[in-house]
């Protein structure tokens, strides 16, 4: 139980000394988050898996040299992951984005709603993918990973002002691209409100 509360920095130090149990806790704590951010950047499961594995390989390689100075461990780990993703995107290694698996749609009265939801999700995924890499990175870290603006800015090695600019531009681009879905959503919200009256 006490080990679960151990700081990441202490665990890295122990993993660097050959403690497999410490490495295991780090994997348990961070894999989901690292995979999520890699997936949102690369939009491909195999590429995201490779990037997550590469991130941890770099951690294992450097764990014995770890000195907890300056940045938090998590900030460093995300930065490594993000740079691996950007490197892959830059080299054009990204595989074709995955087609979302066909979702099961019931034949009930809400079939139209379900189809609409599937189409909307696809449109949103495509709009996110179409964003410039840095804008997508900013939205991934702040919105999906729920990081503070300061931590996200550190990971991206930009100022907080620059991060806010990336976020705002990214969200505006999403709004413009998703205008049809956007209007649809508002329409549905109005209908729901009307139905509730």
């Amino acid at each position, binding site marked *: 139980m006490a080990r679960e509360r151990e700081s990441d920095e202490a665990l890295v130090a122990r993993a*660097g*000394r*050959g*403690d*497999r149990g410490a*490495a*295991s806790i780090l*994997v348990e704590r961070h894999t989901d988050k690292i*995979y*999520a951010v890699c*997936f*949102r950047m690369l939009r491909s*499961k195999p590429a995201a*898996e490779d990037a*997550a*594995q590469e991130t*941890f*390989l770099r951690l*294992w390689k*450097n764990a014995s*040299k*770890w*000195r*907890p100075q*300056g*940045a938090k461990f998590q900030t*460093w780990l995300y*930065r*490594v992951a993000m*740079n691996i993703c*950007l*490197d892959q995107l*830059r080299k054009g290694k990204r595989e074709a984005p995955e087609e*979302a698996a066909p979702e099961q749609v019931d034949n009930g009265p809400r079939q139209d709603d379900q189809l609409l*939801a599937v189409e*909307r*999700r696809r449109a*949103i*995924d495509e709009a*996110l993918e179409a964003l*410039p*890499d*840095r804008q997508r990175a900013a*939205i991934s870290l702040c*919105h*999906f990973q*729920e990081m503070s603006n300061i931590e996200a800015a550190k990971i*991206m*090695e930009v100022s907080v002002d620059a991060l*806010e*600019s990336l*976020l*705002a531009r990214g*969200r505006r681009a*999403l*709004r413009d691209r*998703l205008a049809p879905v*956007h209007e649809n*959503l*508002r329409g549905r919200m109005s209908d729901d409100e009307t139905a509730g009256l």
Partner: protein
Amino acid sequence: MMKQQDYKDELAAVRRCLDAYGGDIARWPASARERWGELVRHEGVGDDRADADAIDALLSAATAPQTPHDLKNRIEAGYRPPSDKSGDFLTGLSVLSGWLKPLPAGALASLTALGFVVAAVTGGDTTLPPEYEAFAYLEESGFAVLDDEAGALWDAE
């Protein structure tokens, strides 16, 4: 009473937060939340908030990544405990002594002399070949190494 210009500035700041962080003020930085959180319901930013809420809703509907069930196992399997350098050195020495043991004293003396000759010919040339110079940074402190690994790969936009 707040001056008109100050008021406009405050609303402009609220719009900037809505633009960047969305309509849920729980996602705003604490300082912005404290300072402008109440103004978010002001009618002067009503449209901006509606937009921000709608974009938040769209983002929430994006596909959520599911970690493959065996990924953690694969990552754990990639862990290699650091090798014990002194152990490696001692192991190497014992192997070397095992090889040399059957040699007669004369042969050992010849090998030693050959070693001196090689050292004399190449003496003073301590420059590392380029492929090893790349590792010179390992002499630096650990965190610097880690930062180098992370690298600054962002493109100027």
